[in-house]
């Protein structure tokens, strides 16, 4: 337990010392919120079902943070620690492999949560967003989304040979997904054909679930999203156990 706490604390510090990762998790989503908030304001429109741009952007940008930490942050950290022999050195100590990996997951989860919290705070204070959901329900959805994307990150980390490759592959997956899933901007603005493509992207289900729960929809209205993400999580864990490499 002592080593898990120490390890988690250490990894948090390392995360914050890496300017790029910290920027895209904590600062960039806020910048997006202020940019589009100042362009469109937060006036309710029929297109968004009576919600304003900022209202629906907060869950969408939260999805963006989840995808960034899962596909980039986690993947690059794991791949570079493996490539540099950091994991190898840790494996020569009695520390449990569970502690090493759990610390990473906890840190990514906490950082993602802080990213979301900053969005919510800014939304409340600056744009007076509406929140019609149930806090517990949104939290549960958030946890499911995080874990299923982190499990994707673990698979990716095992597949890429180097940290550099992790960065390239992570970006190649992340950017199209941000534009097509409704995380980067509302899917209502996308043409029909592209909306069809988006059903193949896991991030779409994160956006759907979080947006729905945020405006007060029930889990029963989002069974597809929950099943897709739940399956992703289980498959992700099983596959990463099978293919994870320490060196």
């Amino acid at each position, binding site marked *: 337990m002592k080593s898990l706490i120490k*390890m988690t604390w*250490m990894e948090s510090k390392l995360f914050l010392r890496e300017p790029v990762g910290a920027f895209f998790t904590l600062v960039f989503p806020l910048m997006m919120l202020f940019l589009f908030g100042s362009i469109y304001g937060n006036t309710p429109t029929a297109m968004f079902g009576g919600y304003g741009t900022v209202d629906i952007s907060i869950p969408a940008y939260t999805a963006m943070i989840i995808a960034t930490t899962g596909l980039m942050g986690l993947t690059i950290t794991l791949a570079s620690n493996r490539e540099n*022999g950091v994991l190898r050195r840790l494996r*020569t*100590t009695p520390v449990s492999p569970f502690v090493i990996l759990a610390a990473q997951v906890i840190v990514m989860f906490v950082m993602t949560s802080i990213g979301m919290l900053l969005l919510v705070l800014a939304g409340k204070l600056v744009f007076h967003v509406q929140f019609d959901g149930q806090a517990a329900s949104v939290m549960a959805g958030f946890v499911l989304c995080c874990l299923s994307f982190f499990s994707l990150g673990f698979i990716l980390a095992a597949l890429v040979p180097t940290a550099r490759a992790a960065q390239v592959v992570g970006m190649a997956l992340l950017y199209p997904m941000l534009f097509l899933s409704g995380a980067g901007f509302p899917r209502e603005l996308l043409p029909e054909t592209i909306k069809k493509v988006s059903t193949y992207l896991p991030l779409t289900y994160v956006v759907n679930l979080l947006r729905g729960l945020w405006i007060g929809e029930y889990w029963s209205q989002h069974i597809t999203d929950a099943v897709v993400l739940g399956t992703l999580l289980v498959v992700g864990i099983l596959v990463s156990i099978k293919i994870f490499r320490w060196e």
Partner: protein
Amino acid sequence: MKSIIQVDLLRKTYGTIVAVDDISFEVKEGEIFGMVGPNGAGKTTTIECLEGLRRPDGGSLRVLGVDPQVDSQTLRTHTGIQLQQSNLPDRMKVWEALDLYSSFYPHSADWETLLAQLGLEEKRNAPFAKLSGGQKQRLFIALALLPDPQLVFLDELTTGLDPQARHAIWDLVRDVRSKGKTILMTTHFMEEAERLCDRVAILDQGRIVALDSPVNLVHELGSEERVAFNLDEPIPAELLEGLSRLGNLKVDGGWVSVIENDHRQTELVGEVVQLLTTSGARFRDLRTEQPDLEDVFLKMTGRTIRE
């Protein structure tokens, strides 16, 4: 003396390549045992089998009384390991690394003391990436000493360091031994083995070709004397002829070594100097040399260690 490591017919292959070819040896409590040999001789594979990081294909191993494959937890708790290839995250600070790693061991040594002992006090807040090669190795030694281990593995400890840093590390290793710890080290510097190790196993192509104390290994070669000097010009033919009557000649660039034949009982230095002065050759840096581990390796394998 208690036996700390017992290796019996250890074998490890990678595909068709036999990395370690049925080697056996024993390491006793309190000694510095060295494995020397060129790259690819099987040193690192052997040490990593002993550390429990690699699974042997054959033979039996006992380290601190346990089989590394079966009871790796005991081993990890009671041994200190410095790996040939490993790193810490670039932005991790020296004190943070020690603090973090000390939380892994049930009875960790005090890391503040180690920090001072290894001369890293002023680098306490420096990130890992900003340390010099010697400082990184000192930090790795500190990490290896954190579990207050009975046995320390040091794999290619001073590779890539400048001579000054290397000598500082040697002093540290002697210090560690004087605290009663057993050390198993690998190196491809013969001088390092000669200066540090109580006993040395010379490895070549996965086999032990010689195993004894450095002094005995050298002694077994016979105490052949050699005289070396440097010539500014190509060696004149008659001088060459005269010298080759005194012993075996080795010419390497401007360096000429005359190695005494075992059977001769003459005063080699005097004769060489006499030949040089009569030939009028301009020579510098005349010196006599004793054979060392490099020569033992050459004799055992027919190659120099750097080939």
